[in-house]
């Protein structure tokens, strides 16, 4: 199993986001659906330890995430946030941001842009001047540069029109085929979850997720 969550409790202020959540996420493409405020983004943050639960255990490939090197975990389990961030400089600089932090070997920016559905012509352009949809693809390429085993995608098409949304969905499905990365995709769109999903998990008003 890719991820397992056992007895997870998360409170934010006075509100319980998760109250004894149990969940298992398998390899492949998993869509996580549920209404706004139910904790979908919080779930992704638990999976790569941007946050820890107040109680309970999160396991990645059978090991408690707290036992793993957190920086290495985040490179293996890369999160692509809902809205693009860190868009200073050129697209090429944005794409190589994560690998430069890690001091890793150079990457093929054009190949990464192609995987994210952009042409190499984008590399020298100012990232901040791209459309939101293009920026989202740049953030996807930036995460792929880390050669992750899992991509966590938080509402990857929320800011896009229907045409662009369909293109991103095709890109994600291609990624799964071409680089064998597992995807955990948070979406409020059940139809999208069905289109993408080998697995669909539903976060309800309460705590239990259905596999």
């Amino acid at each position: 199993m890719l991820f397992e969550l056992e007895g997870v409790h998360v409170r934010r202020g006075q509100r319980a986001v998760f109250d004894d959540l149990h969940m298992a996420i398998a390899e492949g493409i998993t869509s996580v659906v549920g209404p706004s405020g139910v904790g979908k983004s919080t779930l992704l943050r638990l999976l790569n330890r941007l946050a820890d639960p107040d109680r309970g255990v999160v396991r990645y490939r059978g090991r408690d995430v707290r036992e793993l090197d957190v920086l290495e975990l985040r490179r293996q389990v890369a999160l692509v946030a809902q809205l693009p961030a860190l868009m200073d400089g050129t697209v090429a600089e944005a794409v190589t941001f994560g690998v430069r932090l890690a001091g890793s070997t150079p990457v093929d920016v054009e190949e990464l842009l192609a995987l994210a559905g952009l042409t190499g012509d984008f590399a020298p352009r100012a990232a901040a001047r791209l459309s939101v949809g293009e920026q989202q693809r740049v953030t996807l390429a930036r995460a792929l540069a880390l050669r992750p085993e899992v991509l966590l995608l938080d509402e990857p098409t929320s800011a896009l029109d229907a045409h662009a949304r369909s293109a991103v969905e095709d890109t994600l499905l291609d990624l799964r085929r071409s680089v064998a990365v597992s995807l955990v995709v948070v979406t409020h769109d059940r139809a999208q979850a069905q289109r993408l999903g080998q697995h669909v998990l539903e976060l309800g008003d309460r705590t239990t997720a259905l596999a």
Partner: protein
Amino acid sequence: MTAAIHLSTAQVAASLALVAVAIAISLWQRADLEREIGVAVARSAIQLIAVGYVIDAIFSSDRIAFAIALLAAMVLFGAFTARKRAPDVPGAFWPLLIALGLAAAATIGLVVALDVFDATPRYLVPVGGMVIGNAMTAAAVSLNRLGDDMRTSARDIEAALALGATAAQAAGPIARRSLRSGMIPLIDSTKTTGLIFFPGTMVGMLLAGAAPFDAVRLQLVLLYVLLGSVAIASLTAVTLSHRRFFTAAHQLREPAE
């Protein structure tokens, strides 16, 4: 040095005429600052008279331990005061205390070691006071900026953390901006000194009858000492504070609700 200037209490009281002007402007423009001006005038008089007695006693005793005790008290009070300017920085007092203490000790220690000033209360107290005052302002500005930027840039910081950045890497650009914010005002005033304004020490020496180049030399020494002290204070305060926004697992702490 030459004979000191002497002002009578009546002459000091006469300068209150300018305070009356400030209050009149506040009333006229409905700026609602009369009370603030009154408090500022009263506090400045009480505090300076009190510290005048303290300095007089320290100078009379000529014991360096008393001078160091006074400077330590100023560091402590400076850290308390600067903390209020950084409400978004968790636990800002200790980084500020260390920053001001380090800035004072390093700069005063260096100028004494280089034989710029004698290690006597007559030099240490006024120079230390200037160093601590400027270091406090710079550290407070730096931490104020740090708190603001950490809050408004949370999304960028988390994006960096999510890509495997350490807390120091994720907060690096903000820490650098905060450091610059603390240092730039003094750098700018150092650039324009003598052109747009005469700095206080030089004015004081000229009023006291010193030769202009004696005043210039002392002012230059103090400006350079202050540049060093604000750099040390800002760097120390920012370095010790930015880590407080993160957990040991390189997670951004949620702002207090």
